[in-house]
């Protein structure tokens, strides 16, 4: 192939023996053979580009698909689901005619290469997914995992990632209402940057990615297409072009949040005027993905004139235009009569918009360049009928030894003084310390609907000013638990997010997940993946919260060393009136503290075992999802009926971590009494699941404890909100100011 002789469909049919760079583009030999079989000839260069990116692991889910099918098979009975798995993002009914869409995606690899732009474009991509459903984005979240806090490279990656998320999200006017930041050496060469977004729309405004209606126009709008983010660009360039072209292109895209803000506003205005038949954002695989998915989902075919695509770099080849991942672009299907109005709205917002094609009667996706046909494919074979692998998986041989290395054997504090010292060490350890240094770099107030945001464990935004209807979102994951037992670890992540949502007073409704794992070609990793998916699917069935969609990130691995299996689970909740939300702060002196649930000696994978002993072994805490459901119901009822004024779930760091956070947030101390049957150490540090601590006004005590008793939930009075110290009676006293200084000072000391 050369620039002079364009590789047209006719040419491909005539020259079956031309060597093609399928291997360099990431296709396997049998995949390339299948492309030839599907087409009945060799693919053109442009077709090869499309198939190779669309059949990549990232776009096709070819390794994970066989397992992800469980999310569709194990669906709990739930009337809330309006749009399920397979679309850009799932949509659930939250009442009053409103629908909510939410999704979390990974941008792990680019964020390691170029932390600022990698993280920034991660936010950009997830927000476009949300607007492509017809929704106005109302909040973003960012679960992060970094290498060791004291490793020099973490000082490169984390500040860049945080600045990128802030720089992009803050410029879009979206409040950042939650996230996570976890440090662990296993993420040193593979930090995880997950970005999530929530969008709100009326039921009738739900839009889908499909091209229907012969004669309807395909409009590409937003940024011009450049040479950034082309997968395998160097190969294409070396095969196809001469040396005068720009060759080395950054694999990471560069974000322009201003352009994205304009895209949001102009897209929503076009939706409001009912100008759009179908819509798709351009993310991974760019135009290849958008055109093939739109055509595949719709009825009829599509014809695209690639010459009409506005370019930043006029020397781009058609293959490069199809593969470019330039940011801030969208593709809309618009009836011919409404094209003029659509273009006028784009002009109003200074957004470039161009008709690049139309829906046809046929069933082919045809793409033309300089008048010649360079793509002629059945779009389904590109977008939806890619390869599916049944990768071998096997429980790793080291799993037994890991589980046998029980954390119960770790030395415990010998006396009250050591117990006190360990509390201070725990709450100031990087994973348990305040993340305000990070979250204060994000705008959490914009849009004026933020009810709860960091440091609350659950973000909450109001979506109807008249009625107070709101939605809540919590994201949780614990790679240490999942490493010890991926099935249980995934369920613990689900249970924690579910519990966090309920603790805020919202009713858990639906689930999304972002599944971060190592290489699927390693049977041990594939086993972890299969187990985690099974855990989430079984858990969602039991909790009655359907999985509405998700994202898989594989190959988070450096050499032989994979990251901990890290399923991050997001639970969306709904609350009828945000005025009834439950914050975490112990704000009222004299209120009673109750511990809900059962506390057992469970330290495997705990924050204590990490912060004090740098240990990972044993079994994670046991999961009882029926108990989680009951606890959730109690927390939601207590919120609705005004029986509690504060609630905090218990998870990593145990009771003392939760009490410390709630005390510091409220500016009040607490006097705690170790309950009968528990030792002080287990009381403070155990990470048994299915627990929360609540602050109960004295006037509500009888009503609250009666409710717990009737419903069968253990509720133990453990103390009172009081003073300016945390005192564990008979053990130790810690002044709040000392706790605040170490808890809030740790992260700035490392990164500021």
């Amino acid at each position, binding site marked *: 192939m050369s620039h002079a002789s364009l590789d047209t469909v006719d040419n491909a049919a005539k020259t079956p023996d031309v060597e093609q760079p399928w291997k360099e583009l990431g296709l396997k030999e049998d995949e390339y053979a299948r492309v030839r079989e599907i087409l009945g000839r060799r693919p053109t260069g442009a077709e090869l580009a499309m198939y190779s990116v669309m059949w990549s692991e990232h776009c096709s889910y070819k390794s994970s698909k066989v397992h992800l099918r469980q999310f569709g098979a194990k669906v709990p009975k739930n009337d809330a689901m309006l749009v399920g798995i397979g679309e850009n993002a799932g949509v659930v009914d939250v009442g009053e005619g409103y629908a909510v869409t939410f999704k979390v995606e990974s941008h792990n690899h680019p964020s390691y290469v170029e932390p600022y732009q990698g993280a920034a474009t991660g936010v950009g991509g997830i927000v476009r997914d949300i607007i492509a459903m017809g929704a106005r984005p109302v909040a973003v979240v960012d679960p992060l995992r970094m290498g060791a806090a004291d490793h020099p490279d973490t000082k490169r990656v984390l500040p860049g990632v945080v*600045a990128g998320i*802030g*720089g992009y999200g*803050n*410029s*879009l*006017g979206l409040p950042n209402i939650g996230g996570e930041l976890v440090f662990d050496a296993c993420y040193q060469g593979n930090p995880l940057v997950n970005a999530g977004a929530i969008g709100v729309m009326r039921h009738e405004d739900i839009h889908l990615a499909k091209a229907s209606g012969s004669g309807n126009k395909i409009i590409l709008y937003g940024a011009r297409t450049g040479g950034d983010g082309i997968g395998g660009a160097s190969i294409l360039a070396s095969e196809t072009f001469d040396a005068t072209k720009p060759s080395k292109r950054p694999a990471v895209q560069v974000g*322009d*949040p*201003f*352009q994205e*803000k*304009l895209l949001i506003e102009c897209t929503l205005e076009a939706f409001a005027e009912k100008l759009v038949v179908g819509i798709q954002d351009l993310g991974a695989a760019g135009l290849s993905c958008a055109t093939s998915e739109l055509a595949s989902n719709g009825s009829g075919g599509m014809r695209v004139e690639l010459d009409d695509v506005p370019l930043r770099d006029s020397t781009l080849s058609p293959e490069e235009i199809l593969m470019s991942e330039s940011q801030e672009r969208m593709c809309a299907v618009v009836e011919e009569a409404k094209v003029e109005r659509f273009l006028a709205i784009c002009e109003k*917002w*200074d957004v470039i918009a161009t008709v690049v094609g139309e829906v046809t009667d046929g069933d082919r996706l045809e793409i033309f360049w300089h008048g010649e046909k360079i793509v002629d494919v059945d779009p389904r074979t590109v977008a939806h009928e890619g390869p599916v692998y049944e990768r071998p998986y096997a429980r790793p041989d080291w799993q037994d030894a890991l589980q046998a290395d029980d954390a119960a054997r770790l030395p415990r504090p010998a006396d009250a003084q050591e117990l006190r010292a360990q509390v201070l060490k725990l709450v100031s350890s990087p994973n348990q310390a305040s993340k305000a240094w990070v*979250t*204060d*770099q*994000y*705008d*959490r*107030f*914009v*849009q*004026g*609907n*933020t*009810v709860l945001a960091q440091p609350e464990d659950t973000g909450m935004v*109001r979506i109807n*000013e008249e009625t107070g209807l709101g939605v809540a979102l919590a994201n949780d994951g614990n790679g240490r638990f999942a490493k010890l037992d991926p099935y249980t670890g995934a369920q613990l992540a689900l249970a924690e997010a579910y519990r966090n949502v309920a603790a805020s007073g919202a009713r858990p409704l639906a689930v999304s997940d972002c599944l971060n794992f190592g290489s699927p070609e390693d049977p041990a990793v594939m086993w972890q993946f299969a187990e985690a998916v099974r855990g989430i699917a079984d858990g969602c069935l039991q909790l009655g919260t359907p999985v509405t969609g998700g994202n898989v990130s594989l190959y988070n691995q450096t050499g032989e060393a994979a990251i901990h299996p890290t399923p991050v689970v997001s639970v969306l909740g709904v609350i009828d009136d*945000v*005025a009834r*939300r439950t914050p975490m702060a112990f704000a009222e002196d004299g209120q009673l503290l109750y511990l809900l649930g059962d506390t057992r000696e469970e330290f495997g994978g705990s924050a204590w075992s990490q912060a004090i002993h740098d240990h990972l072994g044993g079994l994670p805490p046991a999961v009882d999802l029926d108990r989680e459901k009951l606890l959730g119901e109690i927390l939601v009822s207590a919120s609705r009926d005004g029986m509690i004024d504060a609630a905090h779930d218990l998870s990593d760091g145990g009771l003392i971590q939760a009490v410390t956070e709630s005390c510091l947030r409220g500016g009040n101390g607490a006097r705690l009494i170790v309950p009968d049957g528990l030792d002080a150490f287990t009381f403070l540090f155990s990470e048994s699941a299915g627990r929360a601590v609540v602050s109960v006004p004295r006037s509500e005590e009888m009503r609250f404890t009666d409710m717990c008793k009737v419903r069968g939930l253990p509720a133990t009075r453990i103390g009172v909100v009081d003073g300016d110290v945390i005192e564990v009676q008979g053990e130790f006293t810690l002044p709040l100011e000392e706790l605040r200084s170490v808890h809030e000072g740790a992260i700035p000391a490392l990164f*500021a």
Partner: protein
Amino acid sequence: MTARIGVVTFPGTLDDRDALRAARIAGAEPVALWHRDKDLKQVDAVVLAGGFSYGDYLRAGAIARFSPVMEQVIEQAKAGMPVLGICNGFQVLTETHLLPGAMLRNNHLHFVCKDQRLGVENAGTAWTADFAAGQEIHIPLKNIDGRYVADEHTLDELESEGRVAFRYLDGNPNGSLRDIAGVTNAAGNVVGLMPHPEHAVEPLIGTGGTDGLGFFTSILKKLVSAA
């Protein structure tokens, strides 16, 4: 009888809906203004809201200052119409020279979002009459280019004329000279500040405080009593 408060939307403005809501909650009639319009739709006062107008890729507020709508805003502000510039709006007002000084990147180079305690130093402006001089209020702060600077002579003049409207308390969040958070013009009709009063108008929302409402009730009372 109420007053019409206009809120300008430039491309990249982010807090326009919030400012419109705050005006409505205070009892005013909120009016959306578009950057390309030369007509101010008979509003009685204008709010330039926060955000990153035109992306702020050049210098915060530098391009917005040349928007068609700003011709009228500048002209009418000079004739006495009340104008409040919040964050990016404050930056736009300094670019137009309706207010003195300029904003640089925060001294710590990070975006900062926090609940900020402010001292009200001038309760005589169109936008601060509902406060008392010396009153302490809580208003959310969020910006990356928030470091207020001016030459020493200008700063001395602002101080001596009582035109420092707000000062940061509990430590300086961005390196602003003399802890200045907001200033007013000599006539008291044009006020700019970096913190966001429109984010502090409802209990439960944001930080849960309502000190920001005072800006909007101040202007409303002034406009209604003048009518």
